[in-house]
């Protein structure tokens, strides 16, 4: 059977026919893992990433009829995912503000205690260094370094110019290199 494009699947879902569930399941097959890992690197903890991912897919389903094919589906999906993950962090910041002076310490602690972080020592040091970046710079670094997303697509996801993204990534790399030098010497 010929593989349908994202746009064709969205058209089927919006018709609300018998096949709409299958089409939505196919969209999830294509993107749920990528979306989860993107969200996970922002919120760090698995349970939080699970909650945020589910919310993102529900929002996608509810708003799919308003999706215009001006942008790619996956950049639209990443945009919703990024916004949901960042607002999850804002809520969490308010809840843990009394216990942690600096939120990044809370995230580092979460990484330490998370059963579902199984990285080696260098991976852990790298994640801790990334956590010291400002949130939006952290997102830029993750999208470019781990997911190797094109700057043009990143610009659609983050609603920022390509030039600004390049500069942001450059600064992020510099900071992480310095942090790792200190940590690994």
């Amino acid at each position: 059977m010929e593989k349908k494009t994202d746009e064709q699947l969205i058209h089927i879902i919006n018709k609300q026919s018998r096949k709409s569930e299958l089409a939505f399941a196919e969209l999830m097959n294509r993107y749920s893992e990528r979306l989860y890992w993107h969200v996970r690197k922002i919120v760090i903890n698995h349970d939080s990433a699970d909650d945020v991912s589910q919310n993102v897919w529900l929002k996608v389903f509810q708003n799919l009829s308003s999706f215009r094919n001006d942008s790619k589906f996956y950049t639209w999906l990443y945009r919703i995912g990024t916004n949901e993950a960042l607002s999850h962090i804002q809520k969490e910041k308010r809840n843990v503000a009394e216990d942690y002076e600096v939120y990044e310490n809370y995230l580092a602690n979460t990484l330490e205690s998370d059963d579902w972080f199984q990285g080696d020592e260098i991976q852990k040091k790298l994640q801790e260094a990334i956590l010291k970046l400002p949130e939006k710079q952290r997102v830029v670094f993750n999208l470019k370094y781990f997911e190797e997303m094109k700057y043009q697509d990143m610009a659609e996801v983050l609603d920022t110019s390509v030039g600004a993204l390049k500069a942001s990534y450059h600064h992020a790399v510099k900071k992480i290199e310095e942090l790792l030098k200190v940590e690994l010497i």
Partner: protein
Amino acid sequence: MKHPELNNKHKKDGFAVPEGYFDTLKAEVLQKTHPKQTRIIALNRSFMRYAAVLLIGLLVAGGWFYLSNADNSSDLYDNMVESEIYMYDYAMLDEYTSSGVESDLTNSEDNYLINSEYGSEILMYEDN
């Protein structure tokens, strides 16, 4: 990246998920977006009419079946009455024969009966 620790072999981020997690995630989301609903069949008027006729038919057939299998005392009574009438007829026939009551049939009717297939039978009104 210039730093030796940030080369490609460390691009794995070290995060993991429980086994089968993505299947569970998909199932949970689909359960919320496409809940399985019980099908409701609308009953229109003609359907209700057919259903009523079918129900009445079933009741009549069931009643007939029940009564035909039940101990039927009226059949027994009919059999007893028929038997009694037969006994009465036989007694009357015997009485006529023994008392030699004359036949009301004419001679020509007698001849016809004698020559017909009934001739071989013993006729109660035959002259002794």
